[in-house]
């Protein structure tokens, strides 16, 4: 049963989410706030990458604006929650979360609709232009975003009347939201939608002849993927407590793209691995000083040369070899039986 397609494997993914969540809940209890920050950051970027993985990995659409969506969520959250919050301490963050998701979902629809009408690869150009535009807005519209000086004093959310100022409490909050978002994604991908997304990536012509509405599914994949960027932004802002335009630049969108590819596009757990590679590893590589980008780039290059399917691809290769060996053993066994 666990052989073959992504869909039969997804239940192993569910188990991984739940076990991973349980471990993460207790594991970092001893960590200092820096350690907690790094893990929280990893989760947040995993969510953003998970959205892009839907767009790119499952539906095969190239979006170059995921960091811009992250930025929209982060700035929206900063604006909604700062200075006591526009809906009070308790409700401002939930409101910001919903607004971040909705804004980026709608942005996805507005960008995707005309782009996908023309030709699928136009989406890459349209999102690139959008990412550039958003960066300029983040940087130049000082009255709204604080411009290059950024936006500071973004508060942590308040839960049950208590502000999550404690780093462990906030980390656990990020963990809960990340798990919920992962479960929602898991559910969607194992539903008939996931099958349709994969079909439209593998063979849109045949998918259409089987009644798969290409435009609806394509648009949905892109809009939901973008929304995950926005939702990650709603966690990003209170995590870093200070935002400026730099992490939402076009280059940051490329790093997110790389994250998805490095992790293994089209694999459910790929974004988590990719984000560890792109956002945790640099922290570890700090000792190399200015060389870290060079080391990172070299590692990406080598990894993709060894395994174009990313980190998960290496795991898959071993599993496939195993599977073939099993099948060979079975054939040998049945041959022996026939011979007897």
């Amino acid at each position, binding site marked *: 049963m666990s*052989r*073959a397609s992504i869909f039969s494997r997804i239940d192993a993914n569910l188990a991984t989410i739940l076990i991973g969540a349980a471990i993460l809940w207790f594991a970092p209890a001893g960590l200092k706030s820096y350690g907690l920050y790094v893990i929280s950051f990893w989760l947040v970027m995993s969510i953003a990458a998970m959205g892009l993985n839907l767009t790119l990995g499952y539906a095969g659409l190239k979006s170059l604006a995921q960091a811009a969506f992250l930025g929209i969520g982060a700035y929206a959250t900063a604006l909604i929650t700062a200075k006591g919050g526009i809906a009070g301490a308790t409700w401002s963050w939930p409101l910001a979360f919903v607004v971040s998701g909705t804004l980026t979902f709608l942005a996805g629809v507005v960008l995707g609709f005309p782009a996908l009408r023309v030709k699928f690869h136009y989406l890459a150009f349209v999102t690139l232009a959008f990412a550039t535009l958003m960066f300029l807005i983040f940087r130049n519209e000082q009255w709204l975003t604080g411009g290059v000086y950024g936006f500071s004093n973004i508060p942590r959310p308040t839960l049950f009347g208590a502000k999550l100022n404690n780093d462990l409490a906030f980390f656990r909050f990020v963990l809960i939201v990340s798990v919920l978002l992962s479960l929602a994604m898991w559910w*969607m991908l194992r539903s*008939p939608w996931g*099958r349709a997304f994969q*079909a439209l990536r593998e063979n849109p012509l045949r998918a259409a*002849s089987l009644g798969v*509405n290409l435009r609806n599914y394509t648009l949905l994949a892109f809009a939901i993927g973008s929304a995950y960027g926005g939702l990650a932004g709603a966690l990003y802002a209170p995590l870093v407590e200070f935002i400026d335009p730099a992490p939402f630049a076009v280059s940051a969108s490329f790093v997110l793209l790389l994250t998805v590819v490095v992790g293994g596009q089209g694999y459910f757990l790929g974004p988590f691995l990719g984000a560890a590679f792109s956002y945790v590893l640099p922290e570890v590589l700090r000792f190399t000083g200015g060389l870290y980008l060079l080391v990172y780039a070299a590692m990406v290059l080598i990894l993709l040369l060894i395994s174009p399917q990313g980190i998960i691809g290496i795991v898959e290769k071993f599993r496939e070899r195993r599977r073939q060996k099993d099948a060979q053993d079975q054939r040998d066994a049945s041959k022996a039986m026939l011979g007897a």
Partner: protein
Amino acid sequence: MNVHATPMPVTPPATVLKVEGLKKHFGGIKAVDGVSFHVNEGEILGIIGPNGCGKSTLFNCILGQLQPTEGAVELDGEAITGLFPAELNRRGVSRTFQLLQVFPNLTVRENLILAGQEHQGSMMSRLFGPKDAGLSAEAEKMIGFFNLGHLAETKAGGLSYGQQKLLDAAMAFMAGPRLVLLDEPAGGVNLTMLASLKDRLEAINREQGATFVVIEHNMDFVMSLCTRVIVMAEGKVLATGTPAEIRANPAVIEAYLGH
């Protein structure tokens, strides 16, 4: 098929598909050059003709993969010219392509479920409903019907060519279509499987009343399966008739069967 010897006061069979003056030109190439024909309910219509005479292009124009240069297509008397393929499929028309088109990374069962799922409920009910869209039993039936039983959990890409061809055809039937257009279903299929494919198609035609249009080069296959045959040559219809009539038609023998 029985032909009534005496004229009887029955209503003539309903026309499912009607193609009128269809043309498709690629620059100077007149791939389809004014083709008209109709398909009756319950019929198995064969289309034969030499390589490059426009058979596949004709299918693509009927089914919305290509926009015809000229002409009209009607389904049950309703104009469907230029409708999207997905829309046509949801109206009960399905097809296979000349080049094998299964989803290699999905299992046989997943391929079949995919082929039927868009006909089940709404977008929303598919998201929140069961992951097999309630089609596991139907898929199982189809797997048994096409003798793919032991392969249900195998990735389609791992099947033999002939098995993939069977799966490809099976997928066209998952949604219980009224009209199925098959482009060279027998191409590259060995004799044993060919017999079983023919047997399956006849059974579906009989039991579900599905209407077929089949493009094929394999003469024995066409002549024994089809109730009526259209011969095409250079983008035009050369002749139409029962298999026996076609076999005896001098123009057809000259143009096609002769060699």
